[in-house]
């Protein structure tokens, strides 16, 4: 079975600031403290397309997986299981759009998670606000005998995913605030000189 849910969030910050904050979400010095489930992030591909002006990036995000039932841990054999996610993004600065698709690369025999996010200027206030839309689907692929338990794992994954998603959005808000403070300080400096 597939569980799917949608989420919308309005950032009261302009698009360039929110997308900057979104990049920093996983690379900020505070990331290990705030998003403790994120263990490691690497950029695997980075390409500025000269024809379209779009930036294409692929990153790997290594996260601590939700705790698994005992017998699944035995099947998988790991104590602290880590899970690699692949995040592919396209940023079009002229259209002011940023699209991100994140999928899990690990444990795909058990579960498939896909999260699609888009950051766009908010239609009601395109210069001042940014709309984040997220569509998430989580599909468990159980062995027949394990179906009931798999469903519990799935539910746990959904809960964990939602908690982390909220943490991620809050952190982006926080980074936006300090980017705002930085840019007003820079503007004040420029006026003063």
């Amino acid at each position, binding site marked *: 079975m597939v569980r799917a849910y949608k989420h919308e969030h309005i950032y009261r910050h302009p698009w360039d600031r929110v997308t900057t904050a979104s990049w*920093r979400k996983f690379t900020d010095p505070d990331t290990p403290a705030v998003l403790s489930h994120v263990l490691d992030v690497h950029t695997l591909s980075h*390409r500025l397309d000269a*024809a379209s002006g779009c930036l294409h990036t692929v990153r*790997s995000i290594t996260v601590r997986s939700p705790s698994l039932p005992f017998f699944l841990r035995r099947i998988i054999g790991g104590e602290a299981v880590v899970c690699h996610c692949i995040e592919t993004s396209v940023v079009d600065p002229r259209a002011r759009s940023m699209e991100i698709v994140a999928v899990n690369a690990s444990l795909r025999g058990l579960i498939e998670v896909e999260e699609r996010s888009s950051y766009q200027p908010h239609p009601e206030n395109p210069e001042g606000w940014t709309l984040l839309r997220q569509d998430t689907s989580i599909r468990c692929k159980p062995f027949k005998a394990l179906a009931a338990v798999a469903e519990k794992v799935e539910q746990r994954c959904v809960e964990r995913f939602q908690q982390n998603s909220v943490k991620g959005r809050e952190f982006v808000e926080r980074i936006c605030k300090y980017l705002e403070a930085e840019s007003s300080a820079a503007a004040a400096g420029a006026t003063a000189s």
Partner: protein
Amino acid sequence: MGFVKSSPASQCADLRTAYHDCFNRWFSERFSKGKCDKEECVAEWEKYRGCLAENLKEKHLRNILLEAEESYFPNKGHDGSRSCFNHQ
């Protein structure tokens, strides 16, 4: 099952930080504001990528890294009319 117990390529942490710092600055000050007159952070990216190519062991991630290299210049010969290089 495609997972490992330790984080991949921790040897590249410093090169990664140098690249991410450069990238974040470029993205916030230029690219996100539509001022992408030239690609920056190329040296930082090449050093970091070289380190990953040497040290990244996880097979799936490694494949993505190496595939990306092959398609690094896919747009040669395209009409550059929408190029952000020509817009500034």
